[in-house]
């Protein structure tokens, strides 16, 4: 139980998938211009990453049993694309209010590498199903945390700071990310 708890906290803080493994950067930089959008994107990622990891795990077991792990990439990406499409239709039909809040971000998620990475990491690290689920939910929350933090800083920065011309726009986001990343290293060893 403590192992699961540690895995969960580590995947949010000291092993944060966005700040430590540098995954899902394209959407993180593109969508973090306002806190409102960042929240929508973050929630969408938490949903999709948890669901796809849980679906991909039994599929991986099937591939391993039949000795066809060579095509795991193709299968995983197909699962992710199909899940995202299904979620979009499902939410649009049954929860229109929710769809207005973050439905716009769902199609973008297929090309978010954090989603595919979680599915590849559980293969590389030989997690069990429970560990995979914990890791996936934690990673989703960690990614959402990172994008909301960056968006908050960018909103403040747009009003008050005098950014050098060459760094304006996306360049300064990397400096912000670097400092956040340094701070998150500080969480190492929080849960022993």
């Amino acid at each position, binding site marked *: 139980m403590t192992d699961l708890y540690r895995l969960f906290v580590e995947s949010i803080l000291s092993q944060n998938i966005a*700040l430590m493994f540098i995954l*899902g*950067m394209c959407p993180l930089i593109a969508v973090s211009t306002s806190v409102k959008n960042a929240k929508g994107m973050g929630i969408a990622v938490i949903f999709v990453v948890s669901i796809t990891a849980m679906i991909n795990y039994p599929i991986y077991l099937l591939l391993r049993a039949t000795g066809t792990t060579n095509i795991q*990439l193709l299968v995983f990406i197909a699962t992710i694309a199909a899940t995202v499409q299904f979620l979009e239709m499902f939410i649009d039909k049954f929860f229109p209010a929710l769809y207005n809040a973050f439905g716009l971000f769902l199609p973008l998620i297929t090309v978010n590498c954090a989603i595919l990475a979680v599915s590849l990491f559980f293969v*590389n690290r030989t997690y069990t199903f429970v560990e995979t689920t914990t890791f996936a939910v934690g990673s989703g929350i960690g990614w959402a945390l990172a994008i909301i933090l960056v968006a908050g800083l960018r909103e403040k920065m747009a009003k008050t700071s005098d950014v050098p011309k060459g760094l304006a*726009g*996306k360049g300064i986001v990397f400096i912000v*990310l670097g400092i956040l990343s340094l701070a998150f*290293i500080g969480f190492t060893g929080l849960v022993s």
Partner: protein
Amino acid sequence: MKLIRLKYTKWFNISKNGLSQNNPIAIGVLGICSALAVTNRVENAIAMGLGVTFVIVASSLMVSMIRRFIPPRVRMVTYMVIIATFVIVVQLFLEAFFPIIAAALGAYVGLIITNCIVMGRAEAFAAKNPMRFTFYDGLANGLGYTYVLILVALVREVLAFGTILNYQVMPDGFVNWTVMAMAPGGFFVLAIFIWIIRELTNNYELQQ
């Protein structure tokens, strides 16, 4: 006279776009994940750059070849399957011939699939252009990506380990700057790199 005319050909424009004007990493800020995660060693950067170049060229060619037969509604899924196929080729090749580099790159080889550059070139260029231009565009973008990766990796490897391609270049008293090998170092080096390129090319991004 010939040189001046060369400036206006499509070939010249394609290479200028890929290598400097619209460099996928420095100006487009695409494909950052792999650009930062694997650049703590120069050898990893070279392997990753060449792998991505191969995937861009091969998948763009394929998309361009069948562009008239892809129904617009399912084009994204089609691109995805084509790209995934070539990524599997790269992955198997690295595992068979360069097992050490394959182990160091780990899951990041598989993540070439979600590299926005590959998808971006398929959608923005290959779907509209004949094969010979597509081939050249893929090559220019792939090499534009590779040289930025290698430059970033050079700075990071020298500062983090004091070596280049595992040969010691720094004097004995050099204290390794370990944080450069970790994520923050990558972010800072790339930010400075973008700054330099934008100042040199006078290509500034307007403040939103």
